[in-house]
């Protein structure tokens, strides 16, 4: 059954190619959006991690006529109930199945795709488990909590020949695409320096007391490979401020503005050779991620990328490339500015090298699931983007100037720093083989 559906998808690609579409732009309309297609032609999808981000992402797919969400999974019954209601309300039935354990949904459901929106500390285990079931994945950024975890996902995706779309949706926004493409094509000359501003700080929670676990939440499963700690009311969204689960704003946003910086530099499949910097975490309370951070990565070609919380940078949030002929700054809210406005009117000439174009990040994933072509943000690119954030985190933890081998993905002559490429898992969870 599954093989047949995949065969069908591959044939659909040939048809699409046959009618002369550009290889990187698959028009959604040609693949049935708004058209009439039989249910069997629909791409099936499951959602694992049905919190706010997962449900928000799922909304895009619920709007697509050629996608069918069939089941949702969450360790918190309240969250999965919300997701099921969204699905059932959309389809006008009560068919959406609900699971609490990702192993069970993978065992019982036959699906083409999975949408993963989990706390970072779960990414490597579940990402690899889903990939090894040969299911295409739309995965929320960052790719993983650790560099080793990200590498494991990249290898699993490659081995199983899967489509992966990283939730780095800024790539599918016109201003970011235009900015990166101009920089990539030399509109501001030779680049020597980039500033990436990410959000300040984090949130405060102080020291909430241990409290009863809410009904319907499997707290031990939520913790999974992380250390066992009492429940202190920190759950959805706010897990991001605790190092066991995330690296804070830095690792949350690395998959956006660092990703865009790499894209414009054409370095999104490589990494720096050196990193150093500093940060401060809050002395008060259980939130312990760096809330001030400022580090610089140097690449083999000499380009430096400085990443810092926005208050430390003149340009604030976003990505600002500095070249021999000027600067160009992109940020959320459609922002694109340059040292000289004429730069923004430049066209990529006949010999220009256009960057991958997508106007709709979610649609790009589904189109690629059908076409079997690479998405705009495949797993290995997502890995390189978050790696910069994680290298910065390790530089902050160690306080050392670190030399990095981006091919082998190890620190050179620094065993201690190399220990931080991975976080040990709590039994019985094992790092994906």
């Amino acid at each position, binding site marked *: 059954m599954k093989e047949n559906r995949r065969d069908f998808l591959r044939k659909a690609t040939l048809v699409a190619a046959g009618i002369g579409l550009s290889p990187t732009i698959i028009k959604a309309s040609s693949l049935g959006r708004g058209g009439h297609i039989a249910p069997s032609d629909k791409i099936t999808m499951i959602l694992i991690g049905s919190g706010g981000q997962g449900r928000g992402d799922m909304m895009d797919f619920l709007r697509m006529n050629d996608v069918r969400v069939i089941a949702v999974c969450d360790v918190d019954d309240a969250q999965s109930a919300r997701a099921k209601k969204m699905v059932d309300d959309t389809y006008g039935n009560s068919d959406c199945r609900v699971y609490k354990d990702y192993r069970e949904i993978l065992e019982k459901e036959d699906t083409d795709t999975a949408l993963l929106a989990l706390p970072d500390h779960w990414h490597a285990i579940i990402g690899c488990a889903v990939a090894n079931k040969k299911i295409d994945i739309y995965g929320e950024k960052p790719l993983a909590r650790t560099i080793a975890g990200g590498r494991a996902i990249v290898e699993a995706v490659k081995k199983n020949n899967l489509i992966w779309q990283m939730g780095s949706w800024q790539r599918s926004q016109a201003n970011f695409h235009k900015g990166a493409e101009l920089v990539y094509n030399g509109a501001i000359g030779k680049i020597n320096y980039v500033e990436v501003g990410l959000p300040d700080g984090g949130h405060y929670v102080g020291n909430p007391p241990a409290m009863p676990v809410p009904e319907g939440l499997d707290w031990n499963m939520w913790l999974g490979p992380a250390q066992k700690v009492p429940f202190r009311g920190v759950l959805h969204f706010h897990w991001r401020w605790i190092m066991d689960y995330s690296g804070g704003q830095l690792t949350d946003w690395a998959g956006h503005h660092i990703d865009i910086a790499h894209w414009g530099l054409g370095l999104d499949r490589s990494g720096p050779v050196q990193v150093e910097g500093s940060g401060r975490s*809050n*002395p008060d*309370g259980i939130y312990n991620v760096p809330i001030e951070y400022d580090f610089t990565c140097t690449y083999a070609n000499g380009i430096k990328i400085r990443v810092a919380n926005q208050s430390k940078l003149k340009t604030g949030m976003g990505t600002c490339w500095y070249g021999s002929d000027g600067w160009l700054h992109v940020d959320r809210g459609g922002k694109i500015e340059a040292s000289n406005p004429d730069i923004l009117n430049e066209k990529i000439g006949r010999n220009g090298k256009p960057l991958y174009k997508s106007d709709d990040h979610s649609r790009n994933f589904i189109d690629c699931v059908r076409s079997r072509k690479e998405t705009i943000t495949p797993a290995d690119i997502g890995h390189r983007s978050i790696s910069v954030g994680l290298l910065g985190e390790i530089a902050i933890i160690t*306080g050392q100037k670190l030399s990095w081998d981006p091919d082998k993905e190890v620190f050179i002559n620094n065993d201690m720093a190399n220990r931080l490429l991975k976080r040990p898992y709590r039994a019985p969870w094992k790092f994906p083989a």
Partner: protein
Amino acid sequence: MKKIKIKSMQVIIPFLIALCLFSCSKRPDIDALLITGQNNHKWQGSNVVIKSILENTGIFKVDVAQSPGQGRDMSKFIIDFSPYNLVILDYNGDEWPDETKKNFVSFVETGGGVVVYHAANNAFPGWKEYNEITGLGGWDKRDENSGPYVYVKDGEVVRDDSQGRGGSHGPQHEFVVETFNPDHPIMKGLPDKWLHVKDELYSQLRGPGKNMEILATAYADEKYKGTGRNEPILLTVRYGQGRIFHTVIGHAGGKEMFYPAMECAGFITTLQRGAEWAATGKVTQKVPEGLPTDTETVRWEYYEKMDMDIIRARISDYEVGKTNNCFIALKDMFKENIDDPEKIEEYHNLILDILQSRKASKEGKKILMKDFSWMANESYIPVYKDLSADEDLKNEALYALEMLD
């Protein structure tokens, strides 16, 4: 023979120090309650900072009462103050229930101590007794009906009944805090003038100002939109049998991530002394060395001066709810001295001692295994293995062991 002696001394000395720290530190004898939970400032951070500043003296034990959030049902926020000698106010928000108000006033009347911190003097403009307890206040529609402006002009206390708003401050800046009452126990031995770290200079405070003594002032320079007069910075009030210490400094900003004004050695020292006086009528603490001068600010970024003994004591006593500064300070020392093998060995020995100490807290050991195992060496392995036999520490010990794999 000699060799053995040195070796055994190396083992014993850390234990002697640890023993001393435990046996020398008396049980804290001032039970304090800090009230927080609503404020136009970052109470989530400031309450932890104040708690640690006071507990670091060894004479206070501070509980924290956190109110419901703003606009929530306050009716269950009933506080019994009777177990406490001291109440610290870090609260500026919704009205307390009548019973809590009544209990508070009677606590002060019958001799309880109070510390009024920064924006706590903005709270409850309509609650007469509260304003008599704080002495002076500002904002929230305070005006001539709240009481006179009180300030110092030409060395004299002025009570000024003129009309106008209560409470103002210009942009934050460094300013000199000047002792006005050098004989008060809180002020004895402190520098006459010290430069405070950049902070809000509360001005135009007004209130009943009864039974009030100004201990220190600062000149509110017109250059910073100031009043051009010496505004009270530290003051005391007597209410019934109760003693109140009121400090208007130590702003913890809503958007800021750290609170430099609370790191000021002058703020910390006067808070510690003022709190003891409010609770007991005496100040037994020695004046610390290294306080700011009239031209140099001094910031204690960990809210105290850290050395190896302090770090050892704080980590050994660590529980969730205390500051993480002892761990941050140790990490900073590691980073700063990474190229100094002697110092690094000293830090390793400290960590190993605490990990092996029976008296050190388990929560402290957990953090030492989680956050410091990446820098560990082979000598930690048997220690981690021992700790993995403890059910409470097993996960962290296995984590640390795997880190070294």
